[in-house]
């Protein structure tokens, strides 16, 4: 455990070095400004304290050049601060390609984490050292915020959409994460630990916890929810085929295009009429209320993984569709 008094937080991600560098730069610049102003205040207060008998004071009403000086100097310094802060922020907004994907769902008052290979955990996150990790987050109810002080990064987890956060851990260890957007009664309890592990230990952990991968789980759902009734190749198709869809730019009915990212796929499942693909009828029913946030993540993982020719066969054509609650284990060959 950490020592009883901490004055500076652990630093365990690449971006944290940049954030701290900016922090110290600001500390020094504002420190100089504060010392400057306070020295003048104290010096004037002592030097020009009232004497007995009081002396008359001169009539000084201002000095234009001085005003210009102390207006433009801060402005120039502020531009440096702005530029530096913006650079770090832009880096935070761009996850690198090839990052390890983690899916996080916040709800009052816990965090549910799913790994791409299907491992699930609650209020704990296991990640390997030295590799970029990208979180895709959403909330089931109100706004939460996923904050890892040791990584110097956080993001508001807003219901109804996906947000992203990424970091590259640089020091193995255990670090707090907190919900930092007030979310009701047990907001302060909505916290946990991030375990940054040696890659070998991490692999072992993954194996121990292994279950079906997210994409595989998504495939089961895809069949169970009868998505393949319409989303198939060939003449029976009543909806576009989803192979190689992820990341593509697609033309929309009524003009315009959309990029098929997580948020687009999510919306198309919950609110299919919002953005219909060009050339198709808006006939898809909504799945709002039938798929949970975690199932949505599985479905999206499956669609992401779907390559050319990989759509399952409609091998249960003759079977009448079961009610959506009933689990159907049929697998295509």
């Amino acid at each position, binding site marked *: *455990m*950490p020592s*009883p*008094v*901490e*004055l500076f*937080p652990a630093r365990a991600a690449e971006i944290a070095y*940049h*954030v701290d560098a*900016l*922090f110290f730069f600001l500390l020094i610049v*504002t420190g100089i400004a*504060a010392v400057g*102003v306070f020295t*003048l*205040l104290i010096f*004037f*207060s002592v030097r*020009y*304290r009232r004497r007995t008998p*009081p002396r*008359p*004071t*001169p*009539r*000084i009403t*201002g*000095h234009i050049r001085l*005003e210009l000086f*102390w*207006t433009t100097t*801060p*402005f120039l310094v*502020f531009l440096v*601060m*702005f530029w*530096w*802060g*913006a*650079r770090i*922020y832009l880096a935070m907004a761009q996850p690198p390609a090839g990052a390890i994907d983690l899916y996080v769902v916040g709800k009052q008052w816990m965090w549910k984490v799913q790994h791409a290979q299907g491992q699930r955990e609650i209020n704990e996150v296991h990640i390997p050292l030295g590799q970029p990790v990208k979180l895709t987050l959403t909330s089931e*109810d*109100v*706004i939460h*915020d996923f*904050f890892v*002080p*040791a990584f110097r990064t*956080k*993001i*508001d987890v*807003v219901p109804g959409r996906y947000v992203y956060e990424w970091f590259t851990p640089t020091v193995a260890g255990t670090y*707090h994460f907190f919900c*930092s957007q*007030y*979310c*009701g*009664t047990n907001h*302060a*309890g909505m916290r946990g630990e991030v375990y940054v592990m040696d890659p070998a230990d991490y692999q072992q952990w993954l194996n121990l916890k292994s279950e079906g991968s997210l994409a595989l789980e998504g495939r089961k759902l895809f069949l169970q929810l009868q998505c393949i009734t319409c989303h198939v190749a060939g003449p029976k198709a009543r909806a576009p085929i989803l192979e190689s869809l992820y990341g593509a730019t697609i033309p929309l009915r009524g003009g315009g295009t959309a990029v098929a990212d997580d948020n687009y796929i999510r919306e198309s499942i919950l609110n299919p009429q919002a953005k219909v693909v060009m050339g198709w009828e808006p006939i898809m029913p909504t799945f709002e209320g039938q798929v949970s946030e975690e199932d949505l993540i599985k479905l999206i993982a499956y669609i992401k993984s779907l390559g050319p020719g990989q759509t399952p066969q409609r091998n249960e054509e003759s079977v009448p569709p079961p009610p959506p609650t009933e689990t159907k284990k049929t697998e295509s060959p």
Partner: protein
Amino acid sequence: MSTISAPFRPQSSVRQTPTAGENYVNAAYGTRSWLLTTDHKRIALLYLVSVSSMFIIGGLAATLIRLNLLTPNGAFMTADTYNKTFTAHGIIMVFYFLVPVIPSVLGNFLLPLMIGARDLAFPRLNLASWYIYMVGAAMILWVIFSGGIDTGWTFYTPFSSKASHTDVIPAMIAIAIAGFSSIFTGLNFIVTVHYLRAPGMTWFRLPLFVWSLYATSLILLLATPVLTVALFLVAVERIFGIGIFDPALGGDPVLFQHLFWFYSHPAVYIMVLPAMGIVSEVITCFARKNIFGYPFVVAASLGIAVVGFLVWAHHMFVAGQSVYAALVFSLLSYCVAIPSAIKVFNWTATLYRGSISFRTPMLYILGFIGLFTLGGLTGLFLAALGLNVHVHDTYFIIAHFHFIMVGGTVMAYMGGLHYWWPKITGKLYPESWGRISALLIFFGFLLTFLPQFVLGYLGMPRRYFAYPPEFQVLNVLSTAGASILAVGYALPLTYLIWSLRYGPDAGPNPWEATGLEWQTPSPPPTHNFAEIPVVDCGPYEYSGEEVPDHGH
């Protein structure tokens, strides 16, 4: 007590000859004469009693918060009680104390006196403002004591619109009602400054406190209605289930934050601009100097009022707004810091070659400059996007805005209250007790809030009723500071009341100040001036040198 023998030039040479002993306090007696008064000075006192009571209640909530944070798992409150307590603290302090306090108490009392008017433009509207405030205050107290609300003072959706099970709608109505009181006060001040200035009181002879009230009134008038609309929309969603903010109903939860901060960022300047006005009045008087750079200080006030409307989304850098919007709002946030910096530099320069006396008001005002400077400088950390991400929603923010609002606004208010106390009551407060209170508040404040900057950078989130044990030592330090702060605030409450009865008579102008308010007796007669003064120079002619004739 007048040790200031050096010459100074009052703004008007008209001699006031009041009828002996007749003033606004003793002009009429009885509860009715107070509750139905339209005298701006009496209404100011009604406000003084009301906002002070709210300050005490909000302060008690703060005390409970600090005590509960003494131990990592919460010393004595349940999570829900804690959440309701910090919500009560925030709502009371922001909407019922900090926003109204300086305009409604000191502004109400002094604005007509300082511009040489007999009252505000709409005296009955002024009384109505107080009644509206009281309705809002009574309602919020009822909500808080009958069960409380747990949304935080920021009312973020969809928590406030669908998840909270507490009395959100009554609380919002109470705040919206108080908002109308602000709107009416702002309107009244603007019209008064435009139409009721004494002969010769040109715009550039206005005392800077008047200028700052004018800029504040513009914000009150333009921003408050947006808050009313935002709260109204939450109520619509809660009652009728119309999806505005709840994504499950097709709404956008972040939209609320835009509306809320469109009011609540300018509200920061509603709180701090009048405080800056007080600083200019007090520092010139106790340094016996003209203000350095009068037109720049005025321009800074107006600049803050305008640019303050363009920075609201800096509260949402981690709320998932577009990166480009964030860049623009970061840059604008740096721009809004410049006028505040200009003011600090001009106040410091005002001390140069002065004849500085360290009476209580001056100690408070020097304390203001110190704490406000630190608050402003830490704001530069928050405007830097990449750094904001780390400290957002942590105790760093808490410390920063308490430096501005308590270290800034409350320090200046206390300074102003001591400065004008002799004018308001006709009595002098006890000087050494005053100085002790100023020092206790200054150092108690530092001990309370400096540790919170460290806690924030360590990562302690705000609104946490329990925290990891390694944060305890800093939390205990902060609570220790808060107890000093509490003593610091209790002192003036006691000795100011004591002085009403036992304080020595102040005389019309104990500080030998130049403003019009000091050229009429203390307490002032009901109609302020026996004869309307004619103004023939600027507001701060304290120097011994000849005032050059501007020629008109």
